[in-house]
């Protein structure tokens, strides 16, 4: 049976980017459907009735929701090419831990950087740098979190790099100045076609954030 793979997505979503990268790493052909989140499609509401959120991966008509669950699913189904999770259980647990850490921290803290001002923003910036420094420490001297090749944590984390420029402009700070090794890692990831093709242009993301700020009445 021919495999039918569809991804319901929204271009600036770091969560959507994760699945885009995983699919590209495995060389899977799929149909990319861009959603208008102010006017969600019937398909999206049908495939993700619980959360009504993107991304949704639809494989032969069956939905998989939640980006990290999708990445694991993709890794398990198309297991013979470019493995993302290690095979050793302890290394796998470690990869899951750090991907979970990225999930718990980056989006929420990053969100506070562009959504707030003054003291709240200063606190958010400090927290973001602390979070990034901890991840930088975990990376250590490895080229990727996955070791010699792109792995689960790299896929989970690299999408947020496309938001760094916007966060830096909104917060008036430099992430590279604080975390040079992390930026070096990010640029290394961007050299991979699967990543470069999946991440939007940083200026475009910044323009999108500015629109969102206007929309929410944030200066």
């Amino acid at each position: 049976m021919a495999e039918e793979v569809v991804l319901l997505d929204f271009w600036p979503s770091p969560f959507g980017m994760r699945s885009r990268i995983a699919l590209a790493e495995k060389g899977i052909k799929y149909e990319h459907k861009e959603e208008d989140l102010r006017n969600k499609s019937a398909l999206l509401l049908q495939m993700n009735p619980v959360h009504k959120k993107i991304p949704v991966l639809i494989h032969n008509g069956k939905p998989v929701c939640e980006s990290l669950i999708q990445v694991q699913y993709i890794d398990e189904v198309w297991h013979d090419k470019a493995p993302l999770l290690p095979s050793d259980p302890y290394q796998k647990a470690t990869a899951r831990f750090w991907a979970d850490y990225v999930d718990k921290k980056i989006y929420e803290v990053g969100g506070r950087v562009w959504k707030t001002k003054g003291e709240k923003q200063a606190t958010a910036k400090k927290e973001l740098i602390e979070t990034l420094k901890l991840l930088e420490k975990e990376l250590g001297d490895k080229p990727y979190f996955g070791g010699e090749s792109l792995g689960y944590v790299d896929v989970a984390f690299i999408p947020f790099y496309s938001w760094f420029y916007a966060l830096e402009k909104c917060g008036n700070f430099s992430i590279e100045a604080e975390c040079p090794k992390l930026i070096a890692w990010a640029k290394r990831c961007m050299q991979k076609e699967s990543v470069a093709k999946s991440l939007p242009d940083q200026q475009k993301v910044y323009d999108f954030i500015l629109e969102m700020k206007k929309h929410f009445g944030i200066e």
Partner: protein
Amino acid sequence: MAKSDAEVKVLGTWASPFVMRVRIALNIKSVAYEFLQERLWEGKSELLLKSNPVHRKVPVLIHGDDTICESLIIVQYIDEVWPSAPILPSDPHERATARFWAAYLDDKWFPSLRAIGMAEGEDARKAAIGQVEEGLMLLEEAFGKCSQGQAFFGKDQIGYLDITFGCFLGWLRVTEKMSGIKLLNEINTPALLKWANRFCNDAAVKDVMPETEKLAEFAKMLRGRVRATPTS
């Protein structure tokens, strides 16, 4: 020595549903372990702070020289190191579904359950109860689809989703007792009501599921403590 033969320790507390998940998983695999009880109200032990410097939370699994944190990550680790009596389904889509509902339980449902106890005012309480009940209806439907007519989410034996959800039953029962509302009931959640009894009576669960009375007392003590101390 095979990794699976190395010493196993669980750092945790008797009341934590997250810790319970780890103990059930080890019981399913018939793996012996030492249970190191944290007395969290006396301050976190050095071992806990050393083993989980990032989150400083229980449970922590110490297996030989390795430490693993986060209950669901630990459960999956246990499933992979000791492959007999599998906890996760083998089919990738069924695995994704089990993971989906586990994430829903942790990220949405359990926080809404806790919100009932912390609600200030009748309107807030009603809203919190409504959210929990809605969630239970979704889970009742999910049970139908996952169990396919069998006893558990994991079909003929308890699996990942049974463990994830089942560990919240203690706190669910405490909430029912304190609010006077049967959240799991014959009308809205008949299948889950029966499943809950089966789960609590399972050999791997019986000895680690705390008694509702004991938990209720503990909840009262916690609430008293929370109201007495200023929030930091």
